[in-house]
C-alpha cells in the first residue's frame, strides 16, 4: 500500500481512539489495525534499495 495513505489511515485511527467514545470491541479492533499499519509502514521504511528504471523500460506503467 502507498506509504502516504498508510500513514493517513494510521493517523485517522489514532485520532478516533483519542477523541471518540468507542466500544471496547471497536477500540481494540482499531488498535489492532493501527498496529498492523504501523508494522507495514516501518517495514516499508526499512526498504534499503532504491528502484531505478529508465524510461524505455516503463512503457507498461499504468496511470
Amino acid at each position, binding site marked *: 500500500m502507498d506509504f*502516504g495513505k498508510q500513514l493517513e489511515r*494510521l493517523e485517522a485511527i489514532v485520532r478516533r*481512539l*483519542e477523541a471518540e467514545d468507542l466500544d471496547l470491541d471497536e477500540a481494540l479492533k482499531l488498535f489492532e489495525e*493501527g498496529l498492523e499499519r*504501523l508494522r507495514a*509502514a516501518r517495514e516499508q521504511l526499512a526498504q534499503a*534499495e532504491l528502484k531505478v528504471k529508465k524510461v524505455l523500460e516503463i512503457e507498461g506503467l499504468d496511470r
Partner: protein
Amino acid sequence: MGTPLDLFAAASAEGAWTVGEVTRRARAVIEAGLPPLWVRGEVSGFKAWRSGHWYFSLRDKTAQLRCVMFAKQNYLLPAAPTDGMQVFVFARPSMYEEKGEFQLTVMELLSTEQGGLWKLAFEKAKAALTKDGLLDPARKRRMPPFPRRIAVVTSPDGAALRDIQAVIGRRWPLAELIIVPAQVQGAKAEASVCSALNRISRLPVDVLIVGRGGGSIEDLWAFNSERVARAVAGMPMPVISAVGHETDVTLCDLVADLRAPTPSAAAEAATPDRAEVLAHCGVVAQRLARGLRMSSRRVVERLARTGDRLTSSMQHRLEKSRALLTAHSAHLDALSPLRILARGYAVARDGDGRILRRVGQFPAGREFRLRVADGEVAARVQAAVPPLRNAERGSGGEAGGEA
C-alpha cells in the same frame, strides 16, 4: 516623418527662428519619426549623478550618442555599466533642448557580458510567460509528502543524475526513480528536453526533477527556451528545477514549482527523510497505545456510570415498594377482624370453628365459643329467640353474640 522644414521661410532676418523654436521643432520631428528602439554600443563617459540619474555615451567605430537613464529606470539593474562595456539599450530618441543635443532616453540596459543577446531573448520570453500568467506564484504546487514515483530529466551520464540517485536512495528509497535521459546541451537540447517532458507527462509520476550539472551560462540555453518553459509549466505533476546557476535564473527555474540550487538539493526537496518519518512513526505508535488506554478508560468509566445509575434506579424502586407496602399493611390492619373485635363485637363459632351467623344455628342448650378482642369464652344457648325482622341483611354472628 513630420512636415519638412521650409528653410526659405526663415531666409530673411525678420523670419529667423529662435533657438528654442528650432530645438522644440527638432524634438517633435525626432520623437515622431523614431520610435523607441534597441541600440547596441560601447559605454563611454559614464557618470552617475547624486540624483541617481545616469549619463553616458554609446559609441561604435563611427559615431556616438548621448544617453540618459533616469533613476526610476536604472534602480532595477544589479550594477551600473562601466566604460568600455558592450551593452544593449532600449531607448526613446529625443532632443535635450537645453543643450541642443540629440539624446537617447534609456529605459532598459543589458550588458552583452552578462549573456547579451541571450539575455534579450530571455527577457522577451519572460515577458510572454508573465503575460500568460505562467510565472504567477499562485500557480506553484506543493511537493507530495511521500512521493511514490520520482522522474528525472537529465543527461544520463552526468554528475547530476548520480547525485540525485544517491540522495533519494539515502532519504527515500521507498520511491521508484524513473530516469528519462535527455540531451541538455547543444543544438538538439531544446527538442530533446521537450520530448522527455512530453513522455513523462503521460506517466504516473508524483514529482519531476529537471536537472543539470555545472556548465557555462551559454550551456543553459535549452532551459531558457520559451518552448521548454511552456512544457514545464504544462506538466501535470509538481516540477523541481535544478538547472540554473546561483546568479543566473533560467526560465525553467521561474516556471517550475520549486527552484533548487543543485541537483542534490532538488532531490532533497522532492523527498521526505526516512529517519524523520521513522521517528514520526514512533510518535504515532505512542499515540496509538495512549489512544487505546484512553478508549478503555472511557469504557470503564461508562460502565461505572451505568452501574451507578442501575443502583440508584433499583434503590428508587425499592423505596417505592416499601412505601406501597406500608400503605397496604395499614389498610390491611384496618380491615383486620381483630380491630373489629376491639370495637366490641364478638364472633360465635361451633366446636369445629365454623362461624355461627343465624338464630337457627343456636338451638337451646348448644355449646359454642365466643371470640372477643382478647380471647375466647365458652358459652351455651339458654333459650332460642325468634329471628329479628331485618335479620336478612345483618350478620348472624353478631346477632348470636348477644345470646
